[in-house]
């Protein structure tokens, strides 16, 4: 009997050890990647790197100012499109759980989440770039906004569904019309969850390359016009890392580190703001 219990305790210990080992095994590649990018990238980064555009082949130096600005513009425009549409759609889904439209809309959102980003890029190319006759930052933003939508919609919907009905009833019982109940009570109470979905969707698209390949296309010069081709960080990394020049490889490593830091920062900000804005129910 005693031996049997000992055997079971031993088995339990072994299992625990296994979970720990496997957990470490997951962390190791992650740390390795981060460390490697940091090591390669950090030596290329200086003030000059942020304020200059890339130099032609052969000239040393050069920076990623155009890609940095381009990324900010492309992502901002994508957010301007996706956030309002996504939040409204999420509100619709959380408020109408049983309608046919909600069912199909939910299904589309799920499918959209699974569409490979390259496919979205191609669609944007055929529907926007070709008809307008030119690559443009705007078409890239639209492609990215489509990638943001499912994340924003689902996080809004899930957040709002968790709010108790009693909250809505309190508002209705005070004679509030539906739109005010939503805008003044439901959304403010769920703001932290909605915000975290928005931030995560921005972090998600910040590194997307495929939808931008045939839309924003890239641009070696500084450009702020959203109807013209525009450089972004992932595009710069893609184009320069696959080039045969060492100077350009350096630029790509530096840009990779910047992109990584950006995404990391967004995640940290998300954690902090959602905690700060959380409404205690």
């Amino acid at each position: 009997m005693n031996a049997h219990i000992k055997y079971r305790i031993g088995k339990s210990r072994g299992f625990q050890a296994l979970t720990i080992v496997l957990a470490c095994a997951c962390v190791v590649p992650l740390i390795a990647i981060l460390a490697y990018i940091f090591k390669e990238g950090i030596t290329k980064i200086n003030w000059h790197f942020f304020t200059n555009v890339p130099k032609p082949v052969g000239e040393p130096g050069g920076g990623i100012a155009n890609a940095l600005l381009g990324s900010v513009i492309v992502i901002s425009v994508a957010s301007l499109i996706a956030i309002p549409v996504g939040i409204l759609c999420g509100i619709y889904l959380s408020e109408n759980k049983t309608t046919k439209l909600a069912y199909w809309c939910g299904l589309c959102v799920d499918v959209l989440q699974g569409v490979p980003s390259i496919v979205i890029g191609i669609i944007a190319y055929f529907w926007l770039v070709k008809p307008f006759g030119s690559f443009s930052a705007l078409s890239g933003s639209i492609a990215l906004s489509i990638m943001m939508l499912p994340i924003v919609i689902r996080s809004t919907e899930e957040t709002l569904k968790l709010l108790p009905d009693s909250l809505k009833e309190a508002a209705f019982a005070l004679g509030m019309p539906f739109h005010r109940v939503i805008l003044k009570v439901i959304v403010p109470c769920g703001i932290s969850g909605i915000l975290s979905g928005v931030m995560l969707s921005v972090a998600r698209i910040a590194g997307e390359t495929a939808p931008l390949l045939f839309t924003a296309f890239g641009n070696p010069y500084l450009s702020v016009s959203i109807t013209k081709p525009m450089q972004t960080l992932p595009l710069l990394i893609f184009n320069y890392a696959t080039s045969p020049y060492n100077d350009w490889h350096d630029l790509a490593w530096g840009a990779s580190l910047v992109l990584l830091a950006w995404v990391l920062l967004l995640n940290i900000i998300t954690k902090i703001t959602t905690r700060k804005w959380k409404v205690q129910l």
Partner: protein
Amino acid sequence: MESTIVSTKGFNAYFGTNHVVKDVNIDIPQNNVVAVMGPSGCGKTTFLRCINRMHELIPGATANGTIMLHNENVYDMHPIFVRLKIGMVFQRPNPFPNLSIYDNVIAGYKLNGIKLPKEEKDRIVEHSLTKSALWNEVKDALHKKGNFLSGGQQQRLCIARAIAMEPEVLLLDEPTSALDPISTSSIEALLHDLKKNYTLIIVTHNMQQAARVSDRTAFFYLGELVEYDDTKKMFTNPKDTRTQNYITGRFS
């Protein structure tokens, strides 16, 4: 004899095909407290929620018959007007967690986009909180969030929020079921006071409470209004055997 403020005729309410309020005819006199009693699941809450048209917000819920507020059928009025005139306090306190105590009290104005001068708001907040016997406890913390109060304080905050809108009728669904005896008695005292300006309809499971606070009592059983009379008469000399059984505790 006082005038009637709310009166229902042949009123029915359903959840899908489940008939939960059956042919209710009742006249509520102005400035009275009417207690609604009956075993669990007999449709008290549902009936109360029909009066200010909250019932129809539940998917699949329907109702027919008339409920008159003065001389107007509430089912012909816009629900927003109905709810402004007939306030409600829920069984479980539900202050707005994103608003301060102050803003909770004037939520009916603030969230409806009705702009008031600051003095007017201050007056309403103080008046409503005083009426709901909460002013002394929160007057130094008006700008703190309302959901840090105790359950009883939250319930009184919800009452303040309802009376701040100056409704004509106030519906209270077991307002003290989650409260300790001290909070309960302060709310009961409050009901007594509110009667001067409002008409109150209160659902309660507590017979002593009904006897203490109400002028008239309605007894519901399986969705029917079985008996409706002066509270005193009802408790001393009930006509219907079902009421008798309930009062003497022969079924719950």
